[in-house]
């Protein structure tokens, strides 16, 4: 995000302002831009997060209990193999979903942004995201009908003479369900990025003798890297937090980190301390991934500099 765009040329503006006035003006505007959002984030994100951090340092905290002692017990507990396994499973699901969404979403966004008739583009985009109007619970129920052993998909397969697949209650079903839920997000973000792709560059590449595939990898992808990064980040993080799909479509081994945290806050254990520490670990892990993506997404060559 930090491209180092030259600050707005306030200096070329009204020459009658004094230096102090100018500095004040150039100081107010960033405040005006960043202030309102900043206050909101401060109140409703920073403070609650600090609260979570504090709770995570209280071993075995139950709600309603006064906070007595602090310690790292909650964090050490996460290192037990049971919990590490849950973390790893969630990360696998999230990564797989992200790659699937990217793989299937990019061509769709590409077609919509660059190849579809201009006047239908917006409608088609809205139509693509419209299925998300349904509650995630209902969508997942529909997938049960499709994926179960005697469901629609197997019906089609057997009619075509192919062997029926046992998809339901397996990790494959989870991938299908999650990809379904997050594909439109990926498409939306990629679309926003692809739409501003300067087609003249592709034209230039073709004129210089590049075939479409080369042009794609050398021109299109670098230009849309910020969009790809943002899309992957979004899908990854959101799929880490999904618990309807693994619960309904996954098998008996489907506990994900979000379900684990949910159980800590609202299940039998009611261990808000442990739940908070799990949340903190999740936040830290994902923050690292974001930091990497940010650096990567920032490397796009600046054509105009």
């Amino acid at each position: 995000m930090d491209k180092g765009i030259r600050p707005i040329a306030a200096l070329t503006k009204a020459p009658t302002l004094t230096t102090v006035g100018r500095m004040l003006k150039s100081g107010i505007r960033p405040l005006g831009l960043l202030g309102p959002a900043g206050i909101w984030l401060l109140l409703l994100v920073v403070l609650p997060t600090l609260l979570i951090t504090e709770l995570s340092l209280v071993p075995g905290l139950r709600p309603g209990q006064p906070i007595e002692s602090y310690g790292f017990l909650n964090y050490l507990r996460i290192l037990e193999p049971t919990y590490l396994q849950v973390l790893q499973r969630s990360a696998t699901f999230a990564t797989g979903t992200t790659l699937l969404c990217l793989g299937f979403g990019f061509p769709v966004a590409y077609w919509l942004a660059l190849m579809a008739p201009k006047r239908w583009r917006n409608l088609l985009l809205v139509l693509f995201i419209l299925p998300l109007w349904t509650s995630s619970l209902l969508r997942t129920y529909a997938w049960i009908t499709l994926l179960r052993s005697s469901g629609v998909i197997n019906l089609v397969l057997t009619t075509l003479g192919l062997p029926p697949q046992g998809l339901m209650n397996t990790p494959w079903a989870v991938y299908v369900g999650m990809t379904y839920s997050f594909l439109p997000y990926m498409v939306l973000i990629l679309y926003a990025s692809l739409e501003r792709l300067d087609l003249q560059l592709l034209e230039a590449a073709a004129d210089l003798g590049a075939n479409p595939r080369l042009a794609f990898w050398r021109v299109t992808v670098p230009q849309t890297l910020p969009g790809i990064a943002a899309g992957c980040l979004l899908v990854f993080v959101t799929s880490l937090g999904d618990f309807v799909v693994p619960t309904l479509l996954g098998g008996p081994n489907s506990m994900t980190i979000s379900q684990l945290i949910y159980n800590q806050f609202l299940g039998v254990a009611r261990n808000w301390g442990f739940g908070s520490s799990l949340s903190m670990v999740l936040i830290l892990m994902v923050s690292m991934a974001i930091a990497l993506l940010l650096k990567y997404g920032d490397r796009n060559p600046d054509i105009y500099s």
Partner: protein
Amino acid sequence: MKVAAPSTKTQDLPSRRRVSWQACLTVMMYCFMYIPIIVLGVYSFNESRYGAIWKGFSLTWYRKLMGDERLFLALGDSLKIALCAVAVSSVLGTLMAVGLAKYRFPGKSLYVGISYLPLIIPDIAISVATLVFLASVAVPLSLWTAIAAHMVFCLAYIAIVVSSRLQGLDPNLEEAALDLGATPTQALLKVLIPQLAPAIVSGCLLAFVLSMDDLLISSFTAGGANPLPIEIFSRVKTGIKPDINALSVLLILASGLIASCSEYFRYKSERS
């Protein structure tokens, strides 16, 4: 699938004489997206309340839906929350993204990190923490607290989408506007925002859908209001009846129809 390319040669680049593979894949993906909806539709016309038993075509559930005031109130609550939250967040989020792209200041990385937080924090953790926070400052729960809580993640999503488009925008345009005598505010409104418009709208759509489907944050921060997901999940205990499927089908049909109509009218007005 012909590309309607009026004058620009640049549209010719992807192979066009035969149907491109991107188009095929796109059609497949649209089918992928809509097949579950068709399933829900079929359920909603089934006389039996269980999808697996087909008892015959009937409109019972639609009739039941029309008499279910609480479901529609829930829908209304959800829409109020989503629309307000997205409307305010679109402004705040865009401004924030623009501000972050333009300026360097001490503590910027921290600010950026914080703006990503709403996405990363697990829903349950932020809901409980927000509720505790609100209770500690003695703010009574209402529709507005729910809107405030929704605004947080809407802000973050919109900011991400907008900033991914901000990168690589031509800064010369804004400078040109300033050179031509526009105030910085005018330059912002008339040059930068229109360039960002597709991203802003994409972000808004995203945030809207997320807000409509949110369960945990609404459960804990809404008072005197029942957003739709809570109503639906609560009915799960006694078994979901297809009247909810009927609602989903109607919503999708109505939105799709209105979107198509508005597009059609706009197209006609552009032609004439």
